[in-house]
């Protein structure tokens, strides 16, 4: 009999707590950011496809599914490191052997050479090239992600990738601007 009471008491308790927990799980559910979104937020969104995926989000999905984190040259080592931290894997050097610190570039169309073929416009993943057939095209430098995708389709090779010029706003103090000598 005692055993029965004990079982009933424990069972009732278990039921009550179970209900409480179940309710809390629904009511206080934390909307956690899915891993894909987190990865996507780290990627530089150049949409360049250098990772082998058609855009940053597909690569983010691939990483979430276990792909390597070192396939993003525009992001550089910093991105690899962040991705490695997030995914809990070891940071590797960039797959293509690119420099760790990518130079920011934007596309520039030599306008007098442009024949107005619109091929680059079709290639641009972020619609950063304006122009019309037979009209020369130009790059909206502020929107250009420097993805390189427009360079290849150009039939007359009139697109250059030029490094973004340093401005006073983007200029950085050099800590070691003054060389320090060690005196003996």
């Amino acid at each position, binding site marked *: 009999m005692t055993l029965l009471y004990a079982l009933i008491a424990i069972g009732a308790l278990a039921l009550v707590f179970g209900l409480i927990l179940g309710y809390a799980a629904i009511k206080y559910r934390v909307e956690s950011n899915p891993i894909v979104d987190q990865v996507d937020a780290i990627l530089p969104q150049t949409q360049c496809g250098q990772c082998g995926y058609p855009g940053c989000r597909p690569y983010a999905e691939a990483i979430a599914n276990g792909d390597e984190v070192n396939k993003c040259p525009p992001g550089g080592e910093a991105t690899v490191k962040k991705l490695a931290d997030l995914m809990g894997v070891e940071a590797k050097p960039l797959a293509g052997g690119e420099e760790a610190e990518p130079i920011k570039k934007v596309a520039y169309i030599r306008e007098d050479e442009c024949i107005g073929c619109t091929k680059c416009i079709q290639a641009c993943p972020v*619609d950063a090239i304006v122009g019309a057939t037979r009209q020369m095209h130009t790059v909206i430098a502020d929107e250009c992600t420097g993805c390189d995708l427009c360079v290849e389709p150009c039939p007359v090779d009139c697109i250059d990738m030029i490094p973004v010029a340093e401005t006073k706003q983007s200029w950085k103090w050099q800590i070691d601007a003054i060389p320090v000598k060690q005196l003996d």
Partner: protein
Amino acid sequence: METLLEQIESGKLWQFPGGIHPPEQKSLSNQAAIGSLPLPEYLVLPLKQHIGANGQLLVNKGDHVLKGQVLTQPGTNWSLPIHAPTSGTITDIKPMPSAHPSAMPELSIVLTPDGDDTWCELETRESLDGLDNKALIDIIHHAGIAGMGGAGFPTYVKADSAKTIEYLVVNGVECEPYITADDMLMREHAKDIIRGMEVMMSILSPQYALVGIEDNKPEAFAAMQQAAKHNSKILVRSIPTKYPSGGEKQLIKVLTSKEVPSGGIPADVGVLVQNVGTLFAVSEAVYEGKPLIERVVTVTGNTIHKPQNVWALLGTEVKHLIYSQGFTPVEDQRVIMGGPMMGFTLPTVRIPVVKTTNCILAPDNQELAVAGQEQACIRCSACADACPQTLLPQQLQWFAKGQEYDKLEEYNLFDCIECGACSYVCPSEIPLVQYYRVAKAEIREQKLEKVKAERAKERFEARKARLEREQEERQNRHKRPARSAPAKDKAKVSEALERVKQKRPEQSAVQAAIERAKAKKAEGDTSALEPDNSAVALERAKRKEQARKYKEEKAGSNTSSAPKDAVAAAIARAKAKKAAQAADSIESQEQDPRKAAVAAAIARAKAKKSGDEPKQGSEDDPRKAAVAAAIARAKAKKAEQAPEQNSVSGSDDVKADDPRKAAVAAAIARAKAKKAAKGDKPATEAVVKDEPEDPRKAAVAAAIARAKAKKAAKEAEQVEEPISEDEPEDPRKAAVAAAIARAKAKKAAKEAEQVEEPISENEPEDPRKAAVAAAIARAKAKKAAKEAEHVEEPVAENEPEDPRKAAVAAAIARAKAKKAAKEAEQVKEPIVENEPEDPRKAAVAAAIARAKAKKAAKEAEQKEKPIVDDKTEEDVSSDSDTQTEALSPEDKRKAAIRAAVERAKAKKKAQEQEGNDLS
């Protein structure tokens, strides 16, 4: 308990945490009155000397300007004008090193003084009567006044504060060592400063204006108090000397006990801070009408013989400044702009004084030791004690070194005022402020990147969505009730349309129509001044769009597509007409009329021939067509090679320009291209087998043909009206013919662009090369076509029937060019019999093709005349045998007439149609 107001009235002062007491060194430069400088050889005036945007240039190189004349026009976005500091000539406008630690070049006006120092007309005032706030703020704005204490924030923006200002705080603290510019200004111009204060007070109407002056400047304090005696609302306060009590936030704390919230501005707590120099400039601007063209600059340091304050014209180079005061550089001489705590070492002395330059310090190596080597942090926390913002510099330093930017923000790095107190007290000589500056720049950049990435993502996604939508639309079109054969074509056309749309973010046909209208316009009045008829074009485009929609509806209910074709033909004609007009303006060369006539005849014959063909097209032996195409291609290739060879040897081997030949060649090429294009679909395999030819060549040939078709179209328009009455014929035929021609032209264009796929089978050629070649070929064709046109008028005299024929031929050709547009889309699948298509789509495609041909033509005209001639000759010689085989003159003529009639009808119908639509 006293209220805050009472406390302030009673003269109570508060304390800010931290702070340091560096050696003042002010007596070096505050012994002499403010001096003046000889006029420098030239002045360098950066367009931007403050925080915000620079104005728009109002002057040009070589202009003579008067002292005080405005040089830039301020726009929005915190922009300020700059003024000529003296009269003289503008010798240059170019990027020059700027007053920035990086000395990065910035667009500057170089002014060479004429020595007269002639003022422009100044508007002086005795009082503020009749000036409302807006007028005052406007005066301040147009005087180009920016905060002269250091940051250079536009004063008019501050004065225009939306928040109520309780206290106007005037900063006469000048806490940084060495600098005495404000001190001397207050001593000598206290009255003007007070007047400037009163201007600001009349704008902001604060309860009190508080002047803070450090107690190491008793003379300035006395002068200010004397000058402010008359105004009980101005309270002049002497505050304890402590660095950095001149910081905005610190001064507010000292004078009012208020603390500016993190990330906020003083206006958030009802306070506005102005530097005494700024107020002096305001007074000058309002009462004297003088813009901000000079300021007091302290020139000091042990290497300066005569350290003192001087009135320096903005734009004076630092070099002039220091050498005027006597300067003996020492080894490793540093020249610092600003004070020793917050200033920066100039990379060069050829940097101009700007609105924010308050001190030029040229110390020797004893008075200001070169920073030693950084040692490890010993966690003494002296920096935390010194920090006036109660930050944790040591902590920040760790994070900055570890690039933990999130942590830095958590520890309020952005509240750091970069006063340098922490670096000053650090026993390990850690350049703490430098670390913070780097980290700040880094964080700012990362934030910017983040925003950019976000935008890029948005744009990418928007694009993806658009593409998907278009795909869906296309599929929907597939699903539409199959209207016999054309349904398939439709799909392809829509595909083409999609492509066209992809090229433009806007997707409506209206857009396409507008494009077309523009292209037309460009053709129509290249020579004339361009009247702004874009509105008209838009109107027209809309009308057309309506017409098209109507057409579509009609076609839906009525299987007869004749009217559609008519419309298409009409559109084509309209275009051709425009082109013809343009062509008319081209001056004609001297030509042999007879030759030209012959050429025209041949061309016509061909055009006609091909015009008739489409009807039987489906029965044509594909192989024949393929062979013909191959021949055409071969010729095109030859032509292409020729220019390459000739470009080396020059044009001397070419015979005198023979327009006739060119015309003939053009005609032949056209015919061939047509054939080739026609036979293309069924013949693809045959061609590949029979002759492993390069599609590139075909493309070239096609391009030539297209150009010619265009030419012909022009001719046709001119003769149109007389013909129109002749015989009632089927407008549909004409339309069909037109469509075919167009298709071919387009096809060629397409091939040229997409050489990749076919080539991958045939030859691993560089598609780019092919495209270029095609462009050249097209250009040539165009050229030839033009030449042919010049010959036209003589033709009319010699053979009375000619114009008609020509017209017919032209009509056909035109039609074909148009058709090409349609067919081009279908290229990949077998050609369905030539059915009238939606004219709108065709028109779009045609517009594209036209645009390309024209572009190429332009290039060719500029560069490649000899090549063109040469090439066309080649064509003639090789083609002369083929040209005659198909046509008998009889046939030609009849057909021509018929075609013309058709066209006329088509036109009429189209007009009716359009009329209906409009009504």
